[in-house]
């Protein structure tokens, strides 16, 4: 039986907390929930919050941990959150049990647990953030949909958890669904990670069935935090957010030692020093505490004004103690995908700059710098963790800041070795040096895991081969499901790979991937010329073997998008000085209202006004007027 911990925790008194004088970390359980998208992670989190009474029922909205509207709409978790819960197992004090002073109860023989639930982002774009959240935990609840079974993200997350040495609690969710097949899932889990069927808990997060068992398993199976209270402070930053009043709020897991207000701290990656002004925990609202000790999870406020000073994965140390070894696993997050963002109305440039600055406050992985395009004027080159990240930022700029944007085709970052020995990074095709100065171009590769019914092995492999993939392995998860691993250029899976994968497997395949490094490829820049003038915003870098087909597609698509002008407009695709495809938009020959008598005057005027309005929304490239969709055309591949 799960016992709710009354209203006591509002006063913060009944909690069994470690403090810096004596370590009670033995009753702390730090864990996260990992799952493939839509397997029910957020619903399970909601149930856990309910059962531990973290949030009064009337305030319970679905998916409380995902705060932004956008997250809720897309059903994904963007930023990791952490919440402290109190769990009293069966036999503990029940509701209305008022006996004994609180301090005594806390040290009594009936155990009470502090659960720190660390929520992780559920998308491959945020892989590094996931890995840091996992590093802050000792255990992971692995949720698998009973009808869908193990998917690509299940595998990726599971391996990530194993790498971080976490105790896994396998949960088979949605057992209430009519097509649930938990037995099959048991087998798959056994095959991919040797998980014993006996370890798995059958759950319906929707009805609440099995959730108490999950809570008990967290208490029983996940080990208490390791780490030494008497060692110098080391705390892992696993997320942060920007608060307009307090500055950057760091989400931390204290690994060793203890942190207190007033303490001078060192951010080891950036070498910057600050002084702690406030500490606290999330319940799930922020609640101040006097200290955070080894094993605890909470937040630190230290007058950090800029999210870029506080990197996810960094170690917070006591600035007074020299020679501390940073915690392992930190790396600088680098944007993987770049695109140009331009305001449709050129006078909105300043507004776009201010909006980006505001988003950047809360999003260290977003990068941007001013860029000028011959075609589009003044805008910004923006870097993102991936396409989803890019999409979220674009949508927030449009929705929250009321901006109309032209987004150029996303590009990965190329490493270009020049003949003079110089090495440069190129994230904008327009900046690729002339062919004569290039020794070699390297592009980012990913290792992609695709889980699919065995029936679709053929189509999946065919797709990967089309996308210049290198086959790594094929493994049967069960007799009819396989995990296929390929090394693929990131640029090949950026745009439509997932959609294609879904359509070729009737929606059954799932995908996960991680960046593995840059490798040399035979790449060229494909330029698009309108009326014989190259349009920088339409250039792309592409494999030589695909340039012809892509060029053909692009000019055909542009011919359909670009309206007839008063003169003939040639559209060409070129590699270097060689034109590889050409289409022509023939000249406009007719734009007239032939009949115009008394009653037609108003209609005539409306028609002209509508045309004028439409023209205003076009971009003028030299003498050619181009609708905004033209810049999006590059995004679509057949």
């Amino acid at each position, binding site marked *: 039986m799960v016992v709710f911990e009354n209203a006591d925790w509002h006063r913060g008194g009944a909690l069994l907390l470690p403090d810096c004088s004596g370590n009670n970390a033995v009753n702390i359980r730090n864990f996260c929930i990992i799952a493939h998208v839509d397997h029910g992670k957020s619903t399970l989190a909601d149930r856990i919050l309910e059962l531990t009474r973290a949030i009064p029922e009337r305030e319970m909205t679905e998916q409380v941990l995902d705060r932004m509207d956008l997250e809720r709409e897309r059903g994904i978790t963007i930023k990791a959150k952490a919440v402290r819960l109190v769990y009293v197992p069966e036999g503990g004090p029940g509701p209305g049990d008022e006996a004994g002073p609180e301090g005594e109860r806390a040290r009594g023989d009936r155990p009470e647990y502090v659960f720190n639930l660390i929520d992780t982002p559920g998308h491959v774009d945020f892989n590094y953030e996931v890995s840091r959240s996992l590093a802050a935990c000792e255990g992971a609840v692995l949720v698998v949909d009973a009808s869908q079974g193990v998917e690509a993200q299940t595998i990726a997350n599971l391996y990530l958890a194993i790498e971080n040495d976490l105790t896994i609690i396998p949960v088979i969710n949605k057992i209430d669904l009519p097509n649930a097949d938990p037995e099959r899932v048991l087998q798959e889990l056994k095959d991919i990670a040797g998980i014993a069927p006996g370890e798995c808990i059958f759950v319906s997060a929707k009805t609440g069935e099995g959730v108490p068992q999950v809570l008990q398993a967290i208490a029983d199976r996940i080990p208490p935090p390791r780490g030494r209270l008497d060692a110098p402070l080391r705390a892992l930053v696993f997320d942060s957010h920007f608060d307009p009043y307090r500055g950057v709020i760091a989400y931390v897991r204290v690994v060793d030692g203890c942190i207190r207000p007033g303490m001078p701290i060192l951010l080891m990656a950036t070498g910057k020093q600050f002084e702690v002004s406030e500490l606290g925990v999330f319940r799930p609202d922020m609640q101040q505490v006097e200290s955070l000790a080894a094993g605890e999870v909470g937040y630190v406020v230290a007058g950090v004004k800029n999210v870029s000073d506080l990197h996810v994965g960094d170690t917070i140390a006591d600035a007074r103690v020299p020679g501390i070894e940073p915690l392992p696993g930190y790396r600088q997050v680098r944007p993987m995908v770049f695109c140009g963002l331009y305001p449709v109305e050129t006078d909105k440039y300043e507004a776009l700059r201010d909006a980006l600055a505001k988003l950047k406050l809360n999003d260290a992985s977003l990068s941007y710098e001013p860029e000028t395009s011959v075609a589009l004027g003044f805008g910004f080159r923006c870097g993102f963790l991936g396409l989803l990240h890019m999409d979220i930022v674009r949508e927030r700029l449009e929705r929250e800041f009321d901006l109309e944007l032209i987004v150029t085709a996303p590009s990965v970052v190329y490493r270009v070795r020049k003949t003079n020995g110089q090495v440069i990074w190129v994230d904008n095709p327009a900046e690729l040096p002339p062919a004569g100065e290039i020794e070699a171009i390297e592009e980012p590769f990913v290792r992609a895991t695709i889980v699919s019914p065995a029936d679709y092995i053929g189509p999946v492999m065919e797709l990967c081969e089309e996308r210049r993939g290198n086959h790594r392995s094929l493994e049967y998860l069960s007799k009819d499901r396989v995990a296929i691993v390929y090394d693929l250029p990131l640029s090949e899976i950026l745009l439509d790979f997932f959609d294609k994968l879904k359509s070729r497997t009737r929606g059954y395949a799932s995908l996960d991937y991680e960046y593995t490094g840059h490798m040399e490829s035979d790449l060229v820049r494909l330029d698009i010329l309108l009326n014989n003038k190259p349009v920088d915003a339409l250039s792309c870098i592409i494999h030589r073997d695909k340039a012809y087909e892509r060029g053909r597609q692009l000019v055909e698509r542009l011919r359909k998008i670009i309206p007839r002008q*008063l003169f003939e407009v040639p559209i060409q695709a070129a590699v270097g000085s060689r034109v590889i495809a050409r289409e022509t938009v023939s000249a*406009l*020959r*007719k*734009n*007239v*209202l*032939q*009949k*115009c*008598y*008394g*009653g037609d*005057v*108003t209609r*005539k*005027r409306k*028609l*002209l*006004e509508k*045309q*004028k309005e439409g*023209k205003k929304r076009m971009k003028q490239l030299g003498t050619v007027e181009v609708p905004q969709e033209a810049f999006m055309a590059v995004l679509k591949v057949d």
Partner: protein
Amino acid sequence: MGAWAARLKDLGYRIATVYVGGGTPTILPLRDLVHLLDRIWAIFQVEDGAEFTVEANPGTVDRPKLKAMLDAGVNRLSLGAQAFQDSLLEGLGRIHTAREIVEAFCLARDAGFRNINLDIIYALPGQTMASWEETLEAVTRLDPEHVSAYGLMLEEGTRLWERVTGGVVEACDEDTEVRMYYAAKDILEESGYEHYELSNFSKPGYRCLHNIGYWKIMPYIGLGAGAHSYFGRWRFNNVYDAEEYTERMSRGAMPVEGGREISKAEEMSDFMILGLRMLEGVSDREFRKRFGVGISDVFGEALGKCNSLGLAEWDGSSIRLTRRGLMLSNEVMRDFLIP
């Protein structure tokens, strides 16, 4: 109507042109038609020798009706010929045949009409360049004083629109339509017609004065359901529903709705946009006479760029469309919207 007549008389206006049309007034029985025409003369102060047009469809006129119209002061007849191929006429949903066009035309001539217009249409589904030229030839053989040649506008909900969207017939492509337009211009000009407005041609001295009134932004009064008026810088129209119109008229109520006052700026813009429809264009002198300022004072930017596009010419005293500009006139007119 009486109210209008009284108002006009007070203001000292006289009616310069009368146009009875929109639909087929000649479908009325002779007695009613004559009554309608007589009432117009009786109620309004129509000038002597005013252009007085009645629209008619071939097949709705006979000798007595035509005679009666002439006797009632009608001096111009506009016949909706449309095409000279029965298959195309049928496609348009017309009840008449090519033969009936010729019959109606000859009857009108015999009856004494000395000013006849023929309406013809090109860019019809199924119409070829050859059949269009055949229509133009048939027209020039009949030798009317005036020809209106319109490109078909496919309008949603019409029978033709349904046939085109349903794939029964194929719409005319734009390039063919443009070729047909210029074929009409060349053939009719060769036969002695002046091309004086985008879609209108006439023998010298036979331009349609009534329509020129629209293009020169003269006041006009529309009578009947859904008719539009422009008077005292107000644009308005009568209610569209015929029953409601009759009901309002019978109890002496105003049938007018949708009134909008036109600012001086908009009137200047209308003057340019509609004036450019005429091939002689808009003269700076006329513009000045009407508005007290020159065209370049108001539309300097538009005038500045028009020559470079090759669609219109501005020579400092007037602006007119070029031959190429006729079919692209919206491109020019757009620059004359109120900024």
